[in-house]
């Protein structure tokens, strides 16, 4: 029943997906100040590289005695993981839902390393995620051509266009219709998710896409969905589809 309803949505949304494709897409990078852009361009200045450093160490280190490190199976991430982050979120047959890169890392950690999964947005998880995302820097976002993801993207797009919260605003109202204009003095970006996990100056830390989405949801005074819920998965799947072809900037810097 649920699936059928979603399939109906796919048909309804087909037109708007095509419309989004025609929009000249502009990375949030271009709306930043030259100083912040310089931070992202230069790995020596980008604080996210501190997490990447940790991620590289975690990749090479066995989490417990007798357990293989990530590198034990996958080898050198700089070669083996090139382009992997560009393909997430991907559909996971076992969980019957899309999983993002962090979900995939945790899955591997549970199944192959027999370790407890990290809680969402754990520092180690972010570190490993940023290290893997770095290996896809410059490659185009390439969401998988998987029919099972289609209803999720449609649901994500529906959430993107749905008015929520006390301010009664949808994501699309700012990031599609009013992108390039200003909100309280700050330029409104188009809301592309091609740089996550990223270092946000406001957080003074590295954060995930879900954290950023949560910020926006509470910003319009709506109650955010619980961590790991289907809504976040659907929104992430939709954003990856919306950004397809854009170069990955991870780990990016944003104001």
């Amino acid at each position: 029943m649920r699936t059928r309803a979603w399939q109906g949505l796919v048909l309804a949304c087909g037109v708007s997906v095509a419309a989004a494709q025609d929009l000249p897409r502009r990375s949030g990078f271009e709306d930043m100040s030259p100083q912040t852009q310089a931070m992202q361009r230069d790995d020596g200045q980008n604080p996210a590289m501190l997490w990447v450093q940790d991620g590289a160490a975690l990749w090479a280190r066995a989490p417990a005695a007798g357990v293989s490190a990530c590198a034990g199976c996958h080898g050198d991430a700089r070669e083996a993981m090139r382009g992997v982050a560009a393909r997430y979120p991907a559909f996971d047959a076992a969980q019957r839902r899309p999983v993002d890169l962090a979900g995939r890392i945790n899955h591997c950690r549970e199944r192959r390393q027999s370790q407890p999964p990290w809680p969402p947005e754990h520092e180690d998880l972010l570190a490993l995620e940023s290290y893997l995302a770095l290996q896809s820097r410059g490659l185009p976002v390439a969401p998988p051509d998987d029919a099972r993801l289609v209803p999720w993207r449609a649901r994500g797009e529906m959430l993107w266009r749905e008015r929520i919260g006390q301010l009664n605003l949808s994501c699309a109202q700012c990031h599609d219709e009013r992108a390039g204009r200003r909100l309280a003095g700050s330029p409104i970006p188009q809301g592309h998710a091609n740089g996550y996990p990223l270092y946000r100056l406001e957080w003074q830390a590295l954060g995930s896409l879900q954290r950023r989405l949560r910020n926006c949801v509470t910003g319009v005074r709506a109650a955010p969905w619980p961590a790991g819920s289907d809504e976040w998965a659907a929104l992430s799947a939709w954003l990856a589809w919306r950004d397809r072809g854009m170069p990955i900037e991870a780990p990016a810097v944003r104001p």
Partner: protein
Amino acid sequence: MARTLITAPASAKRGDVIELRTLIAHPMETGFRPGADGLLLPRNLVTRFSCRYNGELVFSAELFAAVAANPYLAFTTVATESGSLSFSWEGDHGFAQTETVTLTVT
């Protein structure tokens, strides 16, 4: 140990001006912000940074509450002789860290 990121040339010609850039992971808690419980979070700052070139102080800085987390400092010095460059950060609660890189001058 806090994570650091140091960008320094491995070699330079004698007399060259070299740029040294450092980044350290540190919360730089100001001591003015309340936490979730309403109480002030204790101050936790890096208060002093210094760089020594073969033991000689070539650059130092005092840092205060207005400096952002993960402070980044970039400065220059003149390459005079081969040796080591040591970077030290000192801060509240006995925070102290030193990182050393080697420089070859030709």
